[in-house]
């Protein structure tokens, strides 16, 4: 995704040259940022959005989850999962933890979490709710059929409606500004077409205010460039269904 040549040029050519010329004290090392990711992962998308919001250049490394790289296994030995943010060689695991880390390290630009402790607690609460509810209930929608799927749809829509209620008439979850809860939720939009098609329902019909919020988010470059095409995700879901023998 991003050109990784610049930091490499800095490291291999420019730095030694400048050091040789005695520029050691005035030189600032460029941050080395790598993201281990998997293109349809909504969790990976969260980190992509945060990095884009802050204008951070990074190297995107696509992982084959059926054949995990030695780097992934080394950087996330506990969970062996993506996304993994690697900053100057040190791994940060878990998407929401990585987003908070990015917000704290690059704090001089585009804040993601609010500054007020109560608003921060609310933002963390709703991001946590999204983590607990949306992925799991959405998965059930495309993995099941018949009555089980009807139950799954009800549950999934219920969670979306809860979030829509929390959004209310605000532009974004945090108010006027795009923030933490928006970053946590909007990646799932790339899966909406898949959920809707597999489940034969319309999220726009059920949650029109939420869809309006999606459109506002998609106007941001950071979001539009971080989310894959919905149809591509749907094709991926069809492949998964075939693989797991789900009709």
């Amino acid at each position: 995704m991003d050109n990784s040549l610049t930091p490499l040029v800095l490291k291999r050519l420019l730095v030694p040259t400048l050091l040789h010329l005695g520029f050691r004290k005035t030189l600032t090392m460029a941050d080395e940022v790598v993201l281990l990711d998997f293109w349809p992962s909504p969790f990976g998308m969260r980190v992509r959005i945060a990095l884009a919001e802050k204008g951070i250049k990074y190297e995107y490394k696509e992982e084959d989850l059926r054949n995990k790289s030695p780097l992934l296994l080394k950087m996330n030995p506990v969970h062996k999962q993506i996304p993994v943010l690697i900053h100057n060689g040190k791994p940060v695991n878990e998407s929401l933890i990585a987003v908070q880390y990015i917000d704290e390290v690059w704090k001089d630009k585009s804040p993601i979490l609010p500054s007020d402790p109560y608003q921060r607690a609310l933002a963390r609460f709703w991001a946590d709710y999204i983590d607990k509810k949306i992925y799991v209930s959405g998965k059930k929608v495309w993995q099941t059929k018949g009555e089980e799927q009807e139950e799954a749809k009800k549950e999934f829509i219920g969670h979306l409606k809860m979030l829509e209620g929390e959004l209310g008439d605000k532009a974004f979850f945090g108010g006027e500004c795009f923030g933490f809860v928006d970053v946590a939720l909007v990646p799932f939009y790339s899966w909406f077409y898949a959920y809707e098609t597999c489940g034969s329902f319309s999220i726009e019909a059920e949650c029109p205010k939420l869809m309006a919020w999606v459109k506002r988010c998609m106007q941001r470059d950071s979001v539009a460039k971080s989310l894959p095409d919905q149809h591509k995700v749907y094709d991926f879901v069809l492949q998964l269904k075939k693989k797991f023998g789900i009709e």
Partner: protein
Amino acid sequence: MAKTDVKVLGAWPSPFVMRPRIALNLKSVEYEFLEETFGSKSPLLLQSNPVYKKIPVLIHQDKPICESLIIVQYVDEVWASGPSLLPSDPYDQALARFWAAYIDDKWFPSVRGIALPQGEEGKAELMVQVFEGLALLEDAFDKCSQGKAFFGGDKIGYVDIALGSFLGWLKATEKMNNVKLLDETKNPNLVGWAERFCSHDAVREVMPETDKLVEFAKMLRARFKAPAS
């Protein structure tokens, strides 16, 4: 700040409820503990946590904050003049959040699973998971404490609170199943840490006694086995 400005809705057996109480104690913040009656949920709880209807809830100046670790972070940020619970370095903060999430999402569910009715094979499998988790946490303690008394260094911090709050139930599980989960030979760091944590001023008064938890667990088991009246 007036005592009634800060309230904690909770119940004595809950490890999650312990967390905000320890955090407030560490910050020397006075609070009112409102004990929920087992088996019913108060109107205040339902009003303060409509999404999950669960304890703990911190009510600060009439504003509710839910989810134990979110409450701990809130306490840390509001009472910033007291000893900090999270590290100041962003990377160390991320590490602390990672371990707390691991404890909640992976490790404790294995511990809790042991107490559930199941066959010997199921129980043995869960115990392996618990031991593996403890090995990871033993190693994490080494890295986080850097030779000091707690995960947080010289003082109790975020990961100490996250893990330490489960010590009561860990001991109760050991007693009820006649097993040793936290073992000095396997986890010398954690055993030493556990003793220091449990005897700390901020923890002692809120850590439930093992025997009381065992009694409580037996009562729960009986209640769920009894036919509906």
